[in-house]
């Protein structure tokens, strides 16, 4: 394997425009060229596994801690232990085992119709099982990784039986069969098909800043609610975007440099200003729109649990008929 000191190779599940900007800035700063292949997390992991020690990849980045855990499980990553990086990111977002580095995170929260729901009706994820939401709840299909992560967190926090009961009742509350993406759930509220929905935080930002008036209207028709914020409650479910270093990374130093850069103040500001994610670096504030939603308490569950319990979560979905 020829080591090429001027490069760093990334397998990326993230394909946002902001990433391009970050890598360009990094290149300007250090002269290290960033090469990227973008595809689904599982496909990339599979490619890593099969390429084995011949893999050209240095870093793997995904938007789901569960996938990082999966990679750790099959042994394709190595630990990262670097002071700068460690000091850059919030402690509660870090991997306890030191395999992966979070760079941003997003919350899976509730949105509700401004007209038909009052904020006081909302409280926790668990409360979504309440029959008062019958035919009012909107959510996308269980094939979606964000829903799977949410269910994993519930499973980890509450246990199997509670998860099944919850899912059963939630399915009973569905306003329609799951379909569409997160934006569509918000639009459906606007259309009056349902009253509350489970969505990712940054989609609201995207809707509100859309070029289309109709989408902005839809975004304005709903409000955001962070569940499980009460005193003895665990906080809102979050998930991270994070990097891991491959076991045989050919350009390890460059990779470390990149991670140092990406968790630093400058790059973290770039992330938040070009999207609606929350920064992993506690010293950086989210974007204006995101700030306007207010702060919230994060679920402090070990994010690896999102991977550990993924299988069980799927079974819960299937068993309870969440399509």
């Amino acid at each position, binding site marked *: *394997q*020829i080591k*090429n000191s001027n*490069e760093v*190779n990334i397998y990326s599940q993230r*394909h*946002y425009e902001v990433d391009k900007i970050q890598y360009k800035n990094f290149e300007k700063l250090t002269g290290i060229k960033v*090469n*990227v*292949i*973008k*595809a*689904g*997390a*599982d*496909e*990339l992991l*599979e*490619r890593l596994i*099969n*390429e*084995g020690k*011949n*893999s*050209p990849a240095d870093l793997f980045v995904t938007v789901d801690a569960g996938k990082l855990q999966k990679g750790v*499980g099959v042994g394709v990553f190595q630990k990262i232990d670097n002071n700068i990086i460690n000091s850059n990111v919030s402690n509660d977002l870090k991997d306890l085992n030191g395999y992966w580095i979070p760079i941003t995170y997003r919350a899976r929260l509730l949105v509700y119709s401004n007209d038909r729901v009052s904020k006081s009706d909302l409280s926790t994820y668990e409360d979504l099982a309440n029959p008062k939401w019958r035919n009012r709840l909107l959510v*996308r*299909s269980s*094939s979606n*990784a964000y829903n*799977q992560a949410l269910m994993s967190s519930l499973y980890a926090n509450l246990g199997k039986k509670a998860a099944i009961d919850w899912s059963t009742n939630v399915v009973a509350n569905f306003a*329609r069969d*799951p*379909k*569409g*993406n*997160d*934006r*569509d759930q918000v*639009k*459906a509220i*606007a*259309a*009056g*098909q349902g009253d509350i929905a489970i969505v990712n935080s940054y*989609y609201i930002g*995207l809707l509100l800043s859309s*070029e*289309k008036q*109709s*989408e902005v*209207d*839809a975004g304005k028709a709903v409000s955001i609610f962070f569940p499980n914020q009460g005193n003895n409650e665990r906080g809102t479910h979050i998930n991270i975007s994070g990097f891991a270093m491959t076991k045989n990374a050919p350009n390890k130093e460059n990779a470390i440099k990149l991670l140092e850069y990406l968790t630093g103040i400058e790059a973290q500001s770039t992330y938040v200003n070009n999207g609606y994610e929350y920064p992993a670096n506690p010293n950086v504030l989210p974007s204006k729109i995101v700030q306007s939603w207010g702060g919230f308490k994060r679920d402090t569950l070990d994010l690896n649990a999102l991977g550990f319990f*993924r*299988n069980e979560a*799927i*079974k819960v979905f*299937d*068993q309870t008929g969440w*399509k």
Partner: protein
Amino acid sequence: MVNSFFLDTNSLNYLIDNLLFDYSVNTLYLVLITSFFSLLLGIVPAWFISNYKFKFRRVIDLILYLPLAIPTYIMAFTYSELLSFTGPFKIKYDFLQIEVLGIILSFSLYPYIYSVSRISFSLFGSRYLEIAKNLGLNGFQTLFKIVLPLSRPAIFSGLFLVIMEVLNEYGAVKYFGVNTFTIGIFRSWNSMNDTGAAIQLSSILLFIVAFLFFIEKYFHQFKRFSFSKNSKINTLNFPRKRNLFMIYIVCLVPIILAFLIPIIFNIINVFSIFESVDLDRLFSLTFNSLSVSLTASSIILILSTYFLYNEKISKSRIYFYINQFISLGYSIPGAVVALAVIIYLTKIDEYFYSVNLIGSFIIYFIILIYAYIIRFLAVGKSPIKSSLEKQPESYDDSAKNLGLSNFKIFQKIYFPINKYSFFTALILVFIDIMKELPIILILRPFNFDTLATQTYEFAVEEMIPLSSIYSFMIIFICSILLIFLKNFLEKSDVFRS
């Protein structure tokens, strides 16, 4: 791949116990709906275009191929947008999911049927139609009793492509929340981390398809048609006023629903983001797309021609079986093909990976093309096959008797006569690869983006407008190529419409 097939996988048992039935029922239903509408949208216009002369016939003919260039997930997004509350009609009604999905899928898939039907209908000479008329069959009876039975193998091969596409469909199906077999495959792979189960599921799929395939062939082989010499041209008639109206309606329905609406939707989106388009990037993506598609589709054209021509002229059955076998690649989900290729190649030669970036670029480019060949040979074969089988055996008997080598027979007889189908095959494969997704995502070299990947990246982040310029570019390039080849063909084709 093979090894993992024998792994004991818990989740497979789990899947079979809990979901397989649901998956199968959904899949079957979706396949039925899509097939029905694809046949309807493909055959009927092809029949009119092949038989009647009317204004705008050539333009309509051209446009009828183009919906193939619109990826199914774009089609799905477009229609769900149109039919949603935030769409122009502010529709509050929640449409049936699976039925609507089936129809929408048929919008992008019917060109497979249209293209083979066109070839088939314009190839068997007017003699059969004359006899049918003389024996008292009216237009519709002729269609059902003569034209369709004679085109059955051709249409079946188009239908095969449609069915395979539905079986492999992921984006649109997931978006519509319909749990099909492929969703099951990805679920067990992506979510349950069980590659073994995924492979077993797709093997089951493969076996079912292969089984259906061989059943059809088995019944079919007794009826291997041998067309009589079809030197009679199939003349175009002027339709009567009443029929003309119907013809326009029938041709315009797919054009409006499957092409105009999505393309207008697309163009509106393009305008809304036009200032932010990075033209340099657009051109480099276009160049990448073109280089992949042209390379792969040319190779596929050559290979499928080679195998089919050999089947045609050799009286042994070997090529027949080879051809059946290589078509099966189309029934394997693209992602599985891609991974299989990686596994296979890494096992063969580690040298592949021990080179620098440019080397690995070339190697991955080759791997990519290789995967495309495995997957899309069936698409290339379908039109060629339906054309070759219309040629009576007496052509190659005569040619052999006149001393032509097999290659020359191809060059001087079969190529000129079947030219139209070769170009159709090229177009179909080209378009398919232009918009292809899972394989290019996994197998592409570093920093290699194409129009399709860029479209997908925006689309998957629910930023359809931003993706529109790239999907528009795909359609645009396909149209240009289509117009170019069609003109070229029509100039040089003297003996057939």
